[in-house]
């Protein structure tokens, strides 16, 4: 997490805003901003993990076979009527 922060204005669902304020009040988060920063960081981590998983799977493929399948797709696409 960076020390430098950008300022932005967001609107959120009231129950999420209340939950963030509750976390701060209970001393579980330093600020409402930190709660939303952490939540977004978690989403970014999850999205990266999802993409990484796809790339790891794809890396196990036989490139020659994938090329043949791609050529087969392109041939079928070229034969489709134009929109």
């Amino acid at each position, binding site marked *: 997490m960076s020390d430098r922060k950008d300022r932005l204005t967001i609107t959120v669902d009231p129950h999420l805003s209340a939950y963030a304020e509750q976390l701060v009040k209970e001393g579980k988060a330093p600020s409402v901003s930190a709660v939303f920063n952490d939540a977004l960081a978690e989403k970014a981590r999850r999205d990266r993990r999802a993409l990484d998983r796809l790339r790891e799977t794809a890396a196990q493929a036989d490139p020659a076979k994938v090329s043949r399948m791609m050529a087969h797709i392109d041939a079928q*696409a070229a034969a489709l009527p134009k929109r």
Partner: protein
Amino acid sequence: MSEGTRTVSTPYVLDVSVLTAVARADAGVTSLILDLDARGQPLVLPALAVAAASLDARSEDADDALRGLEQLGSAEVAPLRDAEQAVRLAAVIARTGLDPWDAHVAAVADTAICPILTLAGEKWREHSADLDEPLHIIEIADPGEARGDSGPIA
């Protein structure tokens, strides 16, 4: 086609068979989808088809893979947005007898006039003429393999 001359491609609508293959970590199909994305080929993921693929796999890894598809730069989820689309989906189910997730694929493809990218070409060919406009099918297959081999494509 070179980068310089590429025009906007007609989106491909991914069906349940393709999404299920990705969810099951089929390396060949996953690699193919990533290559299509890298070429800038628009890919449409009907939301109900994503649900069907998740239902088939029932694992965190599978759901990660499906979420990963949505992160691709050329991919877009087609939701069931409003009553109009829900009624349209019901009409497609009634006309074709397809499951709701397959019918959502057909409805998206029919509405947007986009080909369906599938591993199950035969099934779609059976339903190709069920709607007002014929469905167009692009089948994922390795021409180097004997026909009828329905095993993993990796």
